[in-house]
């Protein structure tokens, strides 16, 4: 539960949709690593992103603030951001901090990808 090193995997799906799988502690370093991965995908032509947090059990407010910044950059480019596989505590944290007002929250990766209208083959 307390991995200090975040493990990231990025994938480009169909129709300009990027996928980031993040497992580990989302603090300032983990959040920044996700932000860097998001910037790379957006720079490579992905307008919208899915961030899969399966394997992430603990976060802090600084890390979530960085996720908020990712969300704002995606929205500035008329893209959309979705999260999936959140624990109940992370889902509640997102709700408290307002991410759920601007990003889609889905129970699993398939649902998140489907919301963008692609087949979701990762």
């Amino acid at each position, binding site marked *: *539960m307390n991995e200090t090193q975040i493990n990231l995997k990025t994938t480009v799906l169909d129709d300009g949709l990027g996928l980031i799988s993040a497992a580990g502690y989302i603090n300032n370093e983990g959040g920044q690593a996700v932000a860097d991965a998001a910037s790379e995908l957006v720079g490579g032509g992905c307008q919208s992103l899915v961030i899969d947090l399966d394997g992430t059990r603990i976060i802090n407010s600084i890390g979530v603030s960085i996720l908020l910044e990712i969300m704002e950059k995606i929205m500035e480019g008329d893209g959309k951001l979705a999260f999936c596989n959140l624990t109940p*505590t992370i889902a509640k944290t997102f709700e408290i901090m307002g991410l759920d*007002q601007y990003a889609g929250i889905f129970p699993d990766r398939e649902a998140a990808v489907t919301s963008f209208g692609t087949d979701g083959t990762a």
Partner: protein
Amino acid sequence: MEVVLHLPAVPNVELVAAKAVETLGEALGMDRNGIEAVSVALVEACLNAMEHGGSSFVVRLAGEDGVSPRMRVEVEDKGRGFDPDACPPDVSTRVHGCVSKRGWGLTLIRELMDDVQISSRPGLTRVRMWKELENAP
């Protein structure tokens, strides 16, 4: 049953406290969701202690019996202190386009835990919080 940790203010030390919550929570029979809620709240309290508190701080964890058994979590530092009332719990105006996205720690603590008491003055800040063993987020 009580756990007392004397922690230095070094990067990621809050995860040591979170691991203690996991161990004690399992021993007390707290479910996974409850343990994770307490862990996130404690991480925020530890970050506050490191930000405002100086070189070290103390974490105390304990199980409390009663009509509703619960876990008690306490974080104490000897730093400069802060005004807990200066951190408004209303978050509706603090999202998207606001000036700062920092300062969510106390809000998260209050929302994730069942009861919270904060006392702070220069030289002694104590955050005490409780989570019922069967009250997940």
